[in-house]
């Protein structure tokens, strides 16, 4: 009950937010926040639900961005058509790469995705005839649905917000479905899941392909909003940024990546004066979160709630087991 009310309140707040922003620059930041939230939600399917760490996610964002950008600038296809095609292209890459990389697990999978990501980056950077190489693609037309065009930050914000909510709902429904429970079973204990008749490889591949499709969609929206893309969108910096967002917010949750994106975009702007020191601070935040707060910012709330409940339900002083008596 309280959960539903909280959700409705949150969604309402997100809808009102751009009207409170007051200026175009803040609205631009809000749109970026939603974009990173969308990309982080897709990465979270792999990191949070499948329990595998991928370093190649930015490459799929790039595939989506380039697909839609090339279709609209070279062939004159309307961006609305480019969007689903971008998702399909990214998903196809995800299918092929996932099929090869998911044969191994753990650190080896992570390294392989890094390798695949680098292949896509190198090809994009060097296939000058198609992608114009490091010069990138410019003059990408804005997103349009029928007579509606999404040129301003505020319009784009609402477009991406709708997608974030849809993907968030999809993740929510997924986790509560039979397939989603299979994801979590594979994450927690793959051999045990296999013994229960779950096809571990197919389950992981499904999750990976869905995640890459959403990443491609996000990339396409980015391309039509910013209007210029370069191969840097696939670079290591972007990979690191997405991982930082998911981990700081809280992996395996829906609110976590959205919250993480807010922290990332917010700090990125707040620390603009700090220059190169910014990434050092983010790196320290990442390491600190991993070590001291493995559940991310979201787990702070859960932690607070459990201690709060314990205070209410139990007589003071007796409820919490003493720290010294543990199993250390």
């Amino acid at each position, binding site marked *: 009950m309280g959960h539903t009310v909280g959700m409705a309140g949150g969604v309402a707040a997100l809808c009102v937010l751009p009207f409170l922003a007051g200026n175009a620059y803040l609205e631009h930041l809000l749109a970026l926040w939603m974009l990173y939230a969308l990309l982080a939600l897709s990465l979270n399917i792999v990191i949070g639900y499948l329990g595998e760490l991928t370093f190649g996610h930015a490459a799929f964002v790039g595939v989506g961005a380039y697909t839609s950008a090339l279709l609209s600038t070279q062939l004159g296809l309307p961006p609305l058509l480019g969007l689903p095609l971008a998702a399909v292209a990214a998903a196809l890459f995800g299918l092929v790469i996932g099929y*090869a990389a998911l044969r191994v697990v753990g650190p080896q999978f992570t*390294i392989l995705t890094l*390798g*695949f990501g680098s292949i896509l980056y190198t090809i994009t950077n060097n296939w000058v005839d198609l992608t114009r190489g490091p010069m990138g693609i410019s003059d990408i037309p804005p997103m349009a649905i029928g007579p509606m065009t999404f040129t301003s930050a505020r319009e784009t914000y609402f477009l991406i917000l709708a997608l974030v909510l849809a993907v968030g709902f999809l993740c929510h429904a997924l986790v509560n479905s039979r397939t989603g429970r299979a994801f979590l079973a594979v994450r927690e204990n793959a051999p045990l899941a296999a013994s229960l008749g779950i096809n571990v490889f197919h389950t992981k591949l499904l999750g990976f392909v869905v995640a890459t499709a959403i990443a491609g969609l996000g990339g396409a929206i980015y391309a039509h909003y910013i209007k210029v893309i370069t191969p840097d969108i696939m670079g290591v910096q972007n990979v690191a940024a997405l991982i930082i967002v998911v981990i700081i917010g809280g992996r395996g949750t829906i609110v976590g990546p959205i919250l993480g994106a807010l922290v990332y975009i917010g700090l990125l702007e707040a620390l603009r004066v700090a220059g190169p020191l910014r*990434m050092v601070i983010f790196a320290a935040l*990442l390491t600190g979160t991993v*070590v001291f707060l*493995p559940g991310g910012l979201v787990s702070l709330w859960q932690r607070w709630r459990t201690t709060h409940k314990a205070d209410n339900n139990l007589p003071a002083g007796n409820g919490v087991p003493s720290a010294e008596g543990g199993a250390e």
Partner: protein
Amino acid sequence: MDVTVFAQQIANGLVNGMAYVLIATGLTLVFGVLRIVNFAHGEFYMLGAYITYFVGTLLGIDYLAAAAIAAVVVAALGIAANKLIFWPLRRDHEFTILLSSLGLALLISNGGELLFGADPKYVDSPFADEVLDIGAITLTQQRVLVFAAAVVALIGVYLFLRYSRFGKMMRATAQNPDGAALTGINIKLVHGYTFALACGLAALAGALVGPTVMIFPTIGNWAVLKGFIVVIMGGLGSVTGALFAGLLLGVIESLGGGYISLGFMEAIGYAMIIVVLLWRPNGLFSTARGLR
């Protein structure tokens, strides 16, 4: 096909490959003994190149001495990194360790950009401009030095692992840490020195390759990627595998760059691991646990 050109490409590839082997040996040692996939490994390569630059070019110390100093300093930094980050986390999930090594990598590379500046630097070496002719093949002395020094270092590592008391302790820890600890081996010491050895090798690679290229604070990304490709291809934890895979990658990249396309050279190397992994998912030289 011109034989001279072909031989030249092979020679270039072997030199590049030997540098990959140096980087990958450290990675595979750290994985074998500490069970850590260290994404920060390339940053120690970068630090090796930069320390050689600062000690050699700015303080005016001889290049070879500067390279040795760089290796020792970075090895000490490796001990510190292990003590502060990886040793306390050794019982944690591999996910945590992977992410904290990524954090460390970002910390060092961006910290490096802050300290050293993003503009490229050139490491001075008296061997960089001198040319050596071996038959029809022409190599700079520096590139011959890369190959020779790497061979010496790798033979040293091999003999150390095979015959020294400490090397045996390392192998025992790689096979079974608990068993090793039960026989009185100081695991903490083994972890620390293995990490130092790995970082020292990475720094040596950086110091050797440094004069043949421009150095940036972000070259660590490149180094760790090459190292990982080699390690994955050879089999995680296999030193022999790293040797063969490193040389193979170097030669294939060189031939691909020479005969197909220079721009796609790197992609050809990456494509190689896919082929290998489709055939042998755990690498060419993978067997049971332990250092080989």
